[in-house]
């Protein structure tokens, strides 16, 4: 068995901090549906990859048993802070470090008080698992890793969980199209900033819904480049790696803007 559930979700603080803003409602409602699906899948741990946790030297894995605090986003500081209380499955995390290392990808765990937890991880965990029921295994986005390496890491992490007899959910945290509004906007009028981006996003979402793996393979790279997708859509590679590569269809629980960028809550069929 691969993962018991799989989700791609946005990591913008806006949806967490202003959930009642009308253009952001579809994402917030999407998160609510995804949270129910996650809970029903009853994972032992969640394998989470956030594009906003950036690494450059190694593949980093969070190995501190409990992370608590209140984080202020570097962009959206005027919207308030985001409290977090995250539990980590340290056994699984350490096993992932070793297994990924054994596969030739230089890998390290981090276990430090006050280590900066990224906004995406906090947003995703708060909205997908509001009661903090499921421990996490968190991997960083190494800027020098390509989609293939990211897939491989997720594949190894899933196999490592299986070896520990653990059922895992997989979560990729990141945005869709990346054109943003670079000036302040009236947030109640937020929308996808570029029409071409919107077209691209919808096209990819349709392919995901229909499970068109071949066409996704052919189009994802162009999509990532032309629609300036968040970190080359590596969060999608993470999910694919954990679910065995093929896409069997998906449910789009919500689609909408994040200050011009594209965002979607997607649950993958397994």
């Amino acid at each position, binding site marked *: 068995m691969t993962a018991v559930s799989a989700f791609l979700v946005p990591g913008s603080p806006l949806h967490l901090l202003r959930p009642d803003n009308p253009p952001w409602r579809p994402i917030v409602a999407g998160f609510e549906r995804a949270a129910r699906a996650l809970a029903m899948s009853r994972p032992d741990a969640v394998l989470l990859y956030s594009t906003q*946790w*950036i*690494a*450059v*030297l*190694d593949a980093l894995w969070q190995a501190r048993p409990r992370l608590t605090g*209140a*984080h*202020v986003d*570097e*962009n959206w*500081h*005027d919207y*308030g*802070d985001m409290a977090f209380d995250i539990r980590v499955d340290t056994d699984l995390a350490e096993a992932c470090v070793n297994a990924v290392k054994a596969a030739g990808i*230089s890998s390290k765990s*981090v276990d*430090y*008080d*006050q*280590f*900066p937890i990224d906004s995406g991880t906090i947003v995703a965990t708060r909205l997908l698992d509001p009661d903090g029921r499921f421990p996490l295994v968190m991997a960083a986005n190494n800027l*020098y890793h390509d989609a293939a390496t990211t897939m491989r890491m997720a594949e190894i992490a899933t196999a490592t969980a299986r070896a520990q007899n653990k059922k895992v959910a997989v979560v990729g945290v990141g945005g869709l199209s990346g054109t*943003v*509004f*670079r*000036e*302040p906007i009236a947030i109640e009028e937020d929308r996808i900033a570029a029409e071409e981006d919107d077209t691209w996003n919808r096209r990819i979402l349709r392919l995901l819904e229909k499970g068109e793996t071949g066409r996704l393979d052919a189009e994802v790279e162009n999509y990532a480049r032309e629609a300036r997708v968040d970190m080359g859509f590596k969060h999608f590679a993470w999910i694919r790696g954990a679910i065995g590569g093929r896409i069997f269809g998906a449910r789009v629980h919500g689609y909408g803007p994040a*200050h011009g960028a594209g965002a979607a809550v997607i649950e993958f069929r397994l």
Partner: protein
Amino acid sequence: MANGEIVAGFLAPHPPHLVYGENPPQNEPKSEGGWEPLRWAYERARKSLDELQPDVLLVHSPHWITQVGHHFLGVRHLSGKSVDPIFPNLFRYTFELEVDVELAEACCEKAAQRGLTAMMMRNPKFRVDYGTITTLHMIRPQWDIPIVGISANNSPYYLTTEEGLDEMDTLGKATREAIEETGRRAVLLASNTLCHWHFHEEPDTPEDMSREHPQSYDGYKWDMRMIELLRQGKTAEVFRLLPQFIDEAFAEVKSGAFTWMFAAMGYPELPGELHGYGTVIGTGNAVMEWNLVKAGLAGAAAAPPSAAGDRAAYAGAMR
């Protein structure tokens, strides 16, 4: 109008390794030393800063990245523990700093008047970025001078290098106006590494200097070429070459601090004083000073900076 002025600008890069090598009480991890030539460079810069007796240090850091405009720290007192997300093994630093909010607000207002999107950061729980903290520690470990912290708008990456640096030029001019009108005696800190090609793995003992060297010979040659021009005061030539330098040496000056500082100083054709150069995990770092008091461009013998220094003259060359 109060006649504040910029008394000096420093190129003041922020590898956390330098703090780690120094072993100050604020930093949790302890080292056996390392990167001494760069730390001695900062020692000379500290001495010079001490003599300048500024009211305020303004720092522009590439590690507070903002997408909507240029942001300014706007909370009087900020404190916390800063853990570097890339080098948490080296930098876990407890800090406390005072912000010159009045000057920050003036900078923000002047930037907005010049058409930039600018905003104040008012959240007291904000985590100050490790670039700002490292540069400030290295230049003034006493933390007894108020600061202004400025974010790096991602325009050079999101738009083009040239468009981004044009904005930084405007931000520099706005900063200068704000300093003049608030009557501050100010020092500018451009928190930038030069060549940014780096190793992909850290030695087991990070401070083992037998392992430290430039990651790229081409990058090293670029650094030497730029430093030599800066030492000769050939500022116009440096800015003509800057986009090419950024592309070929992956230089961190792309994030804009260096342009901001020179724009604020009026691009003086003034020989910079090289306090030292060294590599950190393969990247090229220079600590340099442009002392406008010694040059007679500020202080008692102040004279207006050369109009030929205006960046408009170079704008064409950059496109």
